[in-house]
């Protein structure tokens, strides 16, 4: 269980990295497309201009991160990790906030700046949860006092 918890927590961090890569590719694909003299408008985006697929992937993959964070929470219930549930909740809430920021960015691009920065925070929280799970659980037995 402890190992599954750590794998899931690291997976959240890895998926955040993939999300960043997808946006990086999408932004440059679009910039290069325009740089070559092409036009990017609503119609072009809908017809498969370069970068569109990466942006769509970014939307769906974000939902995937949420699923992994939920799985992390469920696993944390069954793992005897010190403060494991707490950190799983922290990661899940951070994931939820990050997705909400992404949706709200459609209204104001400034929120997109927060979304970008918050990705780093989420990466840090998920990695911290994984690292904290390394320490073995405190043993509950008490050692007998008399050793003859």
């Amino acid at each position: 269980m402890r190992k599954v918890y750590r794998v899931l927590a690291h997976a959240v961090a890895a998926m955040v990295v993939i999300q960043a890569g997808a946006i990086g590719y999408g932004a440059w694909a679009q910039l290069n497309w325009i740089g070559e003299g092409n036009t990017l408008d609503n119609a072009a985006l809908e017809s498969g201009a370069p970068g569109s697929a990466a942006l769509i992937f970014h939307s769906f993959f974000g939902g995937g991160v949420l699923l992994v964070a939920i799985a992390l929470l469920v696993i944390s219930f069954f793992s005897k990790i010190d403060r494991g549930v707490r950190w799983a909740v922290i990661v899940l809430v951070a994931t939820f906030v990050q997705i909400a920021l992404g949706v709200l960015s459609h209204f104001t691009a400034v929120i997109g700046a927060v979304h970008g920065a918050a990705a780093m925070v989420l990466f840090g929280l998920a990695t911290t949860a994984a690292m904290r799970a390394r320490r073995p659980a405190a043993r509950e037995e008490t050692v007998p006092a008399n050793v003859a």
Partner: protein
Amino acid sequence: MPGPIRGRLRLVIAVVATLAVLAPLAWLWLASLVPRAYSVTGMGYHDYGGGPAVDHDHGSTTRSVADLKVDPARKADVVVDLVAEQKTLSVGGKSVAGYTLNGTSPGPTITAHLGQLVEVHLRNASVKAGVTLHWHGYDVPGAMDGVAGVTQDEVPIGGEFTYRFVADQVGTYWYHSHQVSNVQVIGGLFGVLLVLPKTGVSEPVDVTATAHAYGGMKTINGVAGDLRVPAKPGQRVRVRVINTDNGPIETWPGGPYRLLAIDGYDLNAPTEVTDHSVTVTAGGRADLGITMPSDGTAVRVQVSKGTAVILGTGDVAAPRSRRIRWIC
């Protein structure tokens, strides 16, 4: 609390917490599923428009959609044969996976005059997912609407379907596949449907500018770059802008113009417009009326920022645009 009981209690709490998290998610997922097939007629409710409820359900009042058609005995005035193929298109030097009708994308323009009976024979040569033809915005009998799964089955490879409808609306329209249309229409399985008044249009120069982006590459009538149309000084020109893409585009001429028709409907006594663009929505059409300048200069009609129709000879700079702001 003794060890084993404490451990058992912890497990129970863990299971309950898991159910509390997963059960609502499972319920939401189940509630989002749709049945494999459902009848259009089974949805909604009967609306009698405020009058007395008349019982339409029982008795012999059901009709098959296939019966909603033009009198088969009537002879067609305009007969068109279309063969649909799935192939790689070459657009602006790039290869794009697409579809053709009679070898081209866009397919052939179907032109009819008001009141004529149009008959289109569609054959599917190689489109794997099947194909239909839908007459966008045009009132046709139910069986001729071309909506796969609703008014007909899709035409499989080797299959045929004949569409017959009376052209009783004048205007700029287009036709496109309505089977896996999110792929096939973007891939180029469409064409123009022009219905002219009985005596034709009054403009001596009638241009069709079909805007379509293949893999993001913008084209007019299937060709990347600008479309040149000869026009003499003082001549009146009608430019029919058709947006076959999935998102809106702007169109604006470099000079005064009139919006003659929108989405196939004529405007009543349109007045001159300057310095504003027309938003042509996805699937929409805008007929622009332009009078060529008497000094012989060319007129540039932008169809989105990427392409333009250039009327007349000579070069002309792209005109600036300002969008019409609709105040709702």
